[in-house]
């Protein structure tokens, strides 16, 4: 048995049947990380002590013959924007270089309570701002499918870790595509749930109305398992919805026959790489052959999504990142003359180029005289984009589209052109603005053997439907 290649489902079964111990499984991952991660760069911290003690706890339970929790002994990695008590959490930024959080974020706590073993913290773009992981203050991540290429971002470490068997599953965050885009680039499954489905408590904030926590996994069933564990109301996040969490494991087994699938031409326009188009179109054919009804829909405002997104996201970021002032936690610049000098130097030395660019753009969009023209305008367009989805979902149960217009690009290719980098998110930001769930699943490879991802969007809180379609596709493939 290749221990590090196991899915969540296989790993938990092997542990429950006492074929392997949680301790041995964790050790296999530590060894694999030590051997392979130097060329990938997925991990920022390996939390051996925390992982070993959790694994020992699970093995003790197993020995005593007690019923094991649902994710007992499953080794997972956590994106470094999700805080972990006692384990250094930097959000990929120098300004939090020595930050050791005093509490756990809710999603991590729920995973551990369900028996998962936290292997460590995964590399990401600084404050989750980026589409290539090249904005990490610490080191780049290399795509396991082709080391000269980016893994996508901002959850690049999470996607690479799952793709390279350095974790069975990972948690990421998605503000404009940061789970789905790297999942697509690395050939794994990535799920952004509905806004409000999963608590954001303990997620270091980037843009609070767009931030989501979700899983990156090897299979759709694994994504369903993780979502089921982390979803649901949390009193610590007032935006987490107090709605029943369905049993996603039984949801995915329901038939997909006669589900109505929408295809929007706006997602198949100029700039879509031909192999990606072919792969997604043939996936749509597969849904048709599974008995789904394929219907044309229109999302006419799609081309305005990127400009609206970059105004809303940066405005919220400029406000959220005001807390990094060198006073209460994090880096403080030395040799300063006054308080105001300290703020400025701390922030200038602590933040990287892309973070400063977004703070500047967001501050400008919110400043007197420009608020109506930029921020308010973008919020109005956000309404139009959301209405597009509402109108389409009156006719269909799900909408399919490519996750990204191109496969993974080369490291360094877009670092000098922020606008070109932003356009990598063109198919993903709409779901964040509307708050609808989206999943990216692998649907083949380009001629250069690079993974291609297809996205399935669903209605608010109907993750069950998109997981069901993803699962049916995977089984038919």
């Amino acid at each position: 048995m290749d221990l590090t290649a196991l899915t969540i489902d296989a790993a938990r079964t092997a542990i429950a049947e006492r074929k392997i111990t949680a301790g041995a499984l964790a050790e296999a991952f530590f060894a694999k990380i030590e051997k392979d991660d130097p060329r990938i760069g997925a991990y920022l911290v390996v939390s051996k002590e925390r992982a070993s003690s959790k694994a020992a706890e699970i093995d003790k339970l197993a020995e005593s013959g007690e019923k094991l929790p649902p994710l007992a002994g499953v080794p997972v990695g956590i994106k470094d924007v999700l805080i972990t008590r006692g384990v250094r959490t930097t959000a990929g930024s120098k300004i939090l270089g020595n930050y050791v959080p005093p509490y756990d974020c809710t999603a991590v706590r729920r995973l551990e309570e369900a028996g998962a073993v936290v292997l460590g913290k995964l590399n990401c773009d600084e404050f989750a701002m980026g589409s290539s992981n090249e904005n990490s203050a610490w080191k780049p991540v290399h795509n396991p499918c082709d080391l000269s290429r980016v893994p996508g971002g901002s959850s690049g470490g999470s996607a690479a870790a799952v793709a390279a068997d350095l974790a069975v599953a990972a948690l990421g965050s998605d503000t404009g595509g940061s789970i789905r885009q790297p999942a697509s680039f690395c050939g794994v499954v990535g799920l952004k749930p509905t806004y409000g489905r999963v608590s954001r408590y303990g997620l270091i904030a980037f843009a609070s109305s767009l931030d989501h926590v979700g899983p990156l996994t090897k299979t759709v069933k694994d994504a369903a398992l993780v979502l089921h564990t982390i979803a649901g109301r949390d009193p610590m996040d007032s935006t987490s919805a107090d709605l029943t969490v369905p049993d996603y494991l039984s949801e995915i087994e329901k038939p997909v026959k006669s589900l109505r699938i929408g295809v929007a031409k706006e997602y198949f326009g100029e700039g879509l790489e031909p192999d990606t188009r072919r792969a997604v179109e043939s996936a749509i054919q597969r849904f048709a052959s599974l008995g789904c009804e394929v219907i044309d829909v229109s999302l006419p405002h799609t081309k305005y999504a990127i400009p609206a997104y970059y105004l809303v996201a940066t405005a919220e970021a400029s406000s959220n990142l005001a807390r990094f002032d060198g006073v209460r936690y994090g880096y403080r610049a030395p040799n300063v003359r006054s308080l105001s000098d300290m703020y400025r130097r701390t922030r200038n030395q602590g933040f990287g180029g892309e973070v400063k660019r977004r703070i500047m753009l967001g501050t400008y969009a919110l400043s007197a005289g420009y608020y109506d023209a930029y921020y308010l305008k973008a919020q109005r367009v956000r309404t139009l984009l959301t209405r597009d989805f509402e109108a389409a979902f009156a006719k269909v149960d799900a909408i399919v589209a490519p996750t990204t217009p191109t496969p993974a690009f080369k490291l360094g290719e877009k670092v000098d052109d922020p606008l070109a980098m932003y356009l990598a998110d063109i198919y993903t930001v709409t779901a964040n603005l509307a708050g609808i769930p989206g999943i990216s699943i692998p649907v083949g490879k380009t001629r250069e053997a690079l993974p291609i991802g297809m996205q399935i969007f669903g209605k608010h809180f109907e993750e069950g439907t998109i997981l069901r379609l993803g699962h049916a596709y995977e089984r038919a493939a």
Partner: protein
Amino acid sequence: MRVGEEDVTYVSDLANLELSEEERGRMLRDLNSILEYVDTLNELDTGDVAPMAQVSERYGVDNSKQGSERFAYATRSDIHEGLRKSFPRDVAMANAPDPDGPFFRVPKVIDRP
């Protein structure tokens, strides 16, 4: 050009960022290129469109969901969570760069001439 040198100075002051000369030049170029792209939003007449600040206000707008759990949630009354226990001070301050007992020590606030 949407923004000039003086705008970069004004906005970096608002944002408490002290940019180097090189950074300022690059920021000027990048902001102008992004703002020019963002101007495509002006093709849309949004005079009658309400701004959307957050997602949950849209959970219940689809009429087909009236009477559903989701609709009820979107139109519910406020929930009072009450007070929660907070961290002990030493735990909350453990990451401070320059603590002084129960205080955060900071450089001089006012510079006398």
